[in-house]
């Protein structure tokens, strides 16, 4: 890929979706855009970029953004966080036992594996949640990914990644075109298209926000802005889960890391002023 095309694509993605590639991510662009370019009938990325430069085809702008922002995902991705979340949620659920209300936000829901892993896991651990006002909001920038999430149908290959066969047997039905998540596990989840760069106050307040492996693509100031807005929508005793390799260090002091856990779990920070 030539440097001018790389720079153009970096800027394009930054403007469109806040995705900050930085230098040396040619492999990432090529891995995702070469197949796209070919499927659109271009001979290479250069032709695709030339078409973007003309700025006439919204469909192609959309497709490039989609291809770059859709997350690779699997059920129970990194098992550990689900166990650690459970022990933290146990306390919150006890605290909410009279209002019987629990709200979770998957801020990078992608094709739905994370929200479904949550309903599978939480209904298992806390079966009484079926009678609670229990809601999971799944958002993603990619409408295409959300369409898969809403359908809840996965290929044979996808249901083997991270999913024990016992869960496959109890949580899915074998349908003509794959494996479909059972309706009871879909019921608490609402999917909405959302760009994290835009306002999300309307989503309301949450007990837990999961935002794994998304912030890594943003510049520090964008990261800080998003995280600080998360803070406004997390309950005082709620918490935030980031991806295993992500950190809030040097980004925001609105959250403090829960050191007793291996996963990147954060709690709203208690500020000095509030301590006095």
């Amino acid at each position, binding site marked *: 890929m030539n440097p001018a095309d790389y720079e153009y694509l970096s800027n394009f993605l930054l403007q469109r979706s806040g995705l900050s590639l930085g230098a040396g991510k040619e492999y990432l662009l090529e891995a995702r855009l070469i197949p796209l370019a070919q499927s659109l009938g271009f001979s290479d990325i250069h032709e695709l970029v030339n078409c973007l430069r003309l700025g006439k085809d919204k469909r192609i702008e959309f497709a490039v953004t989609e291809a770059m922002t859709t997350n690779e995902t699997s059920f129970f991705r990194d098992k550990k966080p689900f166990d650690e979340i459970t022990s933290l949620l146990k306390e919150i659920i006890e605290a909410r036992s009279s209002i019987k209300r629990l709200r979770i936000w998957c801020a990078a829901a992608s094709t739905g594996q994370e929200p479904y892993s949550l309903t599978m896991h939480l209904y298992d651990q806390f079966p009484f949640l079926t009678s609670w006002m229990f809601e999971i909001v799944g958002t993603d920038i990619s409408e295409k990914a959300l369409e898969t999430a809403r359908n809840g149908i996965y290929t044979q290959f996808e249901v083997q990644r991270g999913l024990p*066969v016992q869960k496959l047997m109890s949580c899915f039905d074998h349908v003509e075109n794959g494996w479909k998540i059972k309706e009871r596990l879909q019921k608490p989840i609402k999917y909405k298209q959302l760009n994290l760069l835009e306002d999300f106050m309307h989503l309301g307040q949450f007990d837990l926000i999961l935002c794994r492996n998304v912030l890594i693509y943003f510049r520090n100031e964008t990261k800080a802005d998003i995280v600080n807005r998360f803070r406004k929508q997390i309950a005082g005793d709620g918490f935030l889960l980031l991806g295993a390799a992500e950190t809030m260090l040097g980004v925001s002091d609105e959250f403090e890391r829960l050191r007793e856990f291996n996963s990147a779990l954060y709690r709203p920070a208690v500020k000095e002023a509030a301590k006095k």
Partner: protein
Amino acid sequence: MKKILLVDDSRAVRLVGTRMAREIGLEPLEAENGQKALDVCRETLDIDVILLDWNMPIMDGLTFLKKLREEDREKQPVVVMCTTENDMPRIIEAMSAGANEYIMKPFTTDIVREKLIETGVI
């Protein structure tokens, strides 16, 4: 090193399985049908895990599994079915016959590795 017994009538599948096993750090043994597998299990008492095909001549995987589970042995290996049979009733049948996990072919090293972690083999 833990031992894995690869049971499949396809030589190609056993070859792929052997390569995967070495990659994961397991010592591979092979059998081309259920009867041969039973023989290997009677000779080698410390097999940790069996990757088991369903459709094979002479003795199929499910028959082998039932016979194995009836055997009085100190160590019952973990059994992971690995088959093109991908219907829910078949999965349930194998699990109730004593399988521990289930892989639907085609499979990748990552899937095998995850299933071995899931079942506590590695």
